């Protein structure tokens, strides 16, 4: 199935070559979890600090159980704490 992967800031290096700006439509296995998708793209789980599925934050305990669907949008941000 296809999903849209959006990577921000330093995570953009994980986007495939066909990505436009900060996002790309990518093919992944059916019925994979949020964490399995992050692993599939070789992204460090701790680096993908903020995980946003279809515009809604997914808290860490739910990232193993939340299953992706066709045409979902998964957005990843690194941690931001400075000031």
């Amino acid at each position: 199935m296809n999903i849209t992967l959006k990577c921000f800031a330093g995570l953009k290096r994980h986007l495939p070559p066909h990505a436009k700006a900060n996002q790309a439509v990518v093919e992944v296995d059916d019925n994979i979890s949020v964490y399995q998708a992050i692993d599939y793209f070789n992204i460090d789980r701790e680096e993908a600090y903020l995980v946003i599925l279809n515009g809604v934050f997914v808290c860490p305990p739910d990232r193993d159980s939340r299953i992706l669907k066709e045409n979902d949008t998964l957005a990843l941000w690194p941690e931001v704490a400075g000031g």
Partner: protein
Amino acid sequence: MNDKDLLRYGRHIMLPEIDFEGQEKLLAARVLIIGVGGLGSPVALYLAASGIGQIIIADHDKVELNNLQRQIAHDENGLGQSKVSSCANRMKQINSKINIVPLDVKLSGEQLLSQVAEVDIVVDCTDNLTTRFEINQACVTHNKWLVSAAAIRWEGQISVYHCGDKDSPCYHCCYGLGAGGSKEPEQNCSTSGVVSPVVGVMGSLQAIEVIKLILSQGDSLISRVLLFDALSMQWESMQLPKNPDCPVCGHIND
């Protein structure tokens, strides 16, 4: 307000969302700004200029040369001074009519709780997660608005928290568990760098949210986080649900 006040705040007063009544609310408001570095500088200067009646600023650092690239409340004359003294001086130059309370301390424990209890809104402009968690806990304890932002490298984020509202999350709902559940990342502008105006953008947005909350105008960033990627010039909006298992705010509204 006297004639000089009407002149000073005229550009506020001509806005229908503010008017005389709104400016009086701003003049009567009490705000605590924790951290007067990159984010806290624009927050403090804009809130002083806007006529927030009482502004408490807390920071335990001294002004260093490497701060001046982005911390615009400070200048070369303030090198070596406490940041709160340097910032308060600049605020007074902008607006001598408001009450500014500088606290040259690392606010924590009972002192943090008592200061939070005294104000209407808390603005988190600190540079590390440990302090952010403690500020969040204090705001949940006293049911205060928390306007929180962060910035690093070319990125920024901002949100507003208020656990007195049903289904409203707290800062811990988003950041409390950490990715992977254990390790707490500790990156800040001192170790990772930050492009100067990014803290200005995020701090200015914090000041806007404070003003809106005091006026009860518009839609605040409650339950919503705005994320800013300056390098690609993209904004992302993220809904932040309340975590019913959150150890800080999960018990509220049971």
